[in-house]
């Protein structure tokens, strides 16, 4: 039965249920247990922000703390996946991808194709993304577009607890490598989540609000900003359709195109930088496939092409706001 839990709890529950269901599921990462080898408490941390807390007590050595060696343990997860396990490796922050990218994009992503379809690599890389945490330039990035560029990877970024649980379960059961992006500012957000296990299929966007005037396409934390913008616009009788992509690879073009064909207006919102982003990708696709439906120029609301600043005064204006999204939507309505 459903009850309200946070996205943090939902992710924990997904890991717990999949580890219980399938003995090949193992979980590894830096401090995902915490306190290993010390004299104090085991399971001291449960991950940097406590997402895996409590799982060690239930599943013991199937949760492994790792040395600070992202290449080695992410690569080991990939190797174990190619040998019949279903590892879930936590890369604490997506910003750390630079020290282990080869094992993800040259190894995990390519095995199935490069080996002629005779290999599968069911590995999940859980990683924290996004800004608004005052974590500065190397712990705040939204690097999803780097991964969507790579064929063979699936890229997921849930916006709420229900989606996080179902998408993580699907990620674990999926036979391809999945980059599972968890927005650190959403961990505490609660929604109704069934206690039972369930999987949300990839490539299925969620229409979180229906509307006939403007389509807003986004994912992750920006879904909430877009919903705030839609609520503001509704007061002026501008009805926004807000689409939460949920998975960025594969991506649900049908839902996006259907919506734009109805509204004729599009705002793409992305917490990533503007160039070669999810927003520019969606813009390009809609221009190609639904040009005749468009009543006005597509608008993009993204972070600027700068590193993520530290100071709250700067970070607050770095992140796309509901006001900026609403302004962009109004701009599409002006023509």
């Amino acid at each position: 039965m459903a009850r309200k839990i946070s996205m943090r709890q939902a992710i924990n529950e997904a890991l717990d249920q999949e580890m219980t269901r399938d003995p090949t599921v193992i979980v590894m990462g830096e401090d995902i247990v915490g306190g290993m080898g010390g004299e104090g408490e085991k399971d001291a941390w449960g991950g940097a922000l406590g997402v895996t807390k409590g799982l060690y007590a239930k599943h013991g050595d199937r949760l492994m703390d790792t040395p600070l060696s992202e290449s080695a343990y992410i690569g080991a997860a990939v190797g174990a996946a190619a040998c019949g396990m279903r590892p879930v490796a936590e890369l604490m922050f997506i910003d750390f991808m630079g020290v282990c990218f080869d094992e993800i994009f040259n190894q995990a992503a390519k095995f199935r194709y490069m080996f002629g379809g005779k290999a599968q690599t069911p590995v999940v890389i859980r990683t924290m993304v996004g800004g608004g945490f005052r974590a500065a330039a190397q712990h705040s990035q939204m690097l999803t577009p780097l991964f969507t560029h790579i064929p063979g990877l699936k890229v997921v970024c849930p916006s709420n607890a229900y989606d996080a649980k179902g998408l993580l379960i699907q990620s674990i059961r999926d036979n391809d490598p999945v980059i599972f992006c968890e927005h650190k500012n959403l961990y505490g957000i609660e929604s109704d989540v069934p206690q039972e296990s369930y999987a949300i299929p990839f490539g299925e966007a969620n229409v979180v609000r229906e509307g006939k005037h403007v389509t807003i396409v986004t994912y992750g934390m920006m879904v909430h900003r877009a919903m705030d913008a839609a609520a503001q616009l509704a007061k002026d009788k501008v009805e926004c359709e807000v689409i939460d992509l949920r998975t960025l690879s594969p991506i649900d073009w049908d839902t996006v195109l259907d919506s734009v064909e109805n509204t004729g207006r599009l705002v793409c919102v992305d917490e990533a930088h503007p160039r070669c982003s999810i927003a520019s990708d969606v813009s390009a696709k809609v221009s190609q496939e639904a040009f005749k439906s468009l009543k006005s120029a597509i608008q993009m609301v993204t972070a600027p092409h700068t590193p993520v600043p530290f100071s709250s005064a700067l970070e607050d204006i770095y992140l796309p706001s509901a006001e900026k999204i609403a302004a962009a939507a109004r701009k599409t309505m002006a023509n």
Partner: protein
Amino acid sequence: MSKNPFPLDKQGLLEAYRTMRTIREFEERLHNEFAKGDIPGFVHLYAGEEASGTGIMMHLNDRDRIASTHRGHGHCIAKGVDVKGMMGEIYGKAMGSCRGKGGSMHIADLSKGMMGANGILGAGAPLACGAALAAKFRGDGGVGISFVGDGASNQGMFLESLNLAAVWNLPAIFVVENNGYAESTSRDYAVAVDSYVDRAAGFGLPGVTVDGTDFFAVYEAAGEIIKRAREGGGPALLECKMIRFFGHFEGDQQTYRGKGEVEHIRAQRDCIKLFSDKVVEAGVIKRPELEAIDKEVLKLIDEAVATAKAAPMPAPAELLTDVYVAY
């Protein structure tokens, strides 16, 4: 028949010889075919290094996994990958091991425990740790073996893996195939420590150095290390000092090598010749028995090349299969 002084019975010795000969014939044929311009892309040959791969792989079964290098043909053959499929792959044909999608640097056969040759130097070390981890969880006594050259032994991925394997006490074995050159750069220039045994010790795992041209030295050292790993004794490093008959890749003029170096090693340190002389001198195997194997191997490689050349290319539709495609 004299008493057999070797650690393998006659059948085992003949098998080892056949494997090494198959690798040699495969690589020399590729060298010639490449010169004719029939083979696309980059090809890195294992000729001269056969004793290493063969001496290690003789201890393994299909549940043991290896992560190979860009110079992977020998590892593939020794691990039991189908030779015709390999040749087809190198020619980029649909009947290739990877259906023409991998090529020389990515031949793999997971069903044989061959996790792939690898175009990224050092990337196989974490993968072998993963294979070892999987074996440990399954409790099936399997091992994961990473091959690197002396060049990739300097990669962070490799060094991190030594530590990870030691920390997790994995049944992982790191084989450094030290042929003296990282591409054109000599090992002495690029590796600061004199001995890989020292480097292993620095990561808290035992290391052994052997003459990689001596099949029996490799076979015995590998046997001990692998047995130890299977029994839960943890990881180890094995350095095989060996030689490369050909250049880094086909087309390499090898101007960096000393004058007469290649001629000398071919005459004096050919691991197959050394092996043959030993087993014949000991009276365990007669030369005609080896020559009979030579003929069979030659026939196999002839067929493999002919089959590969005649085989159809992959259909255009194959471009978009075996991967999630969305754009």
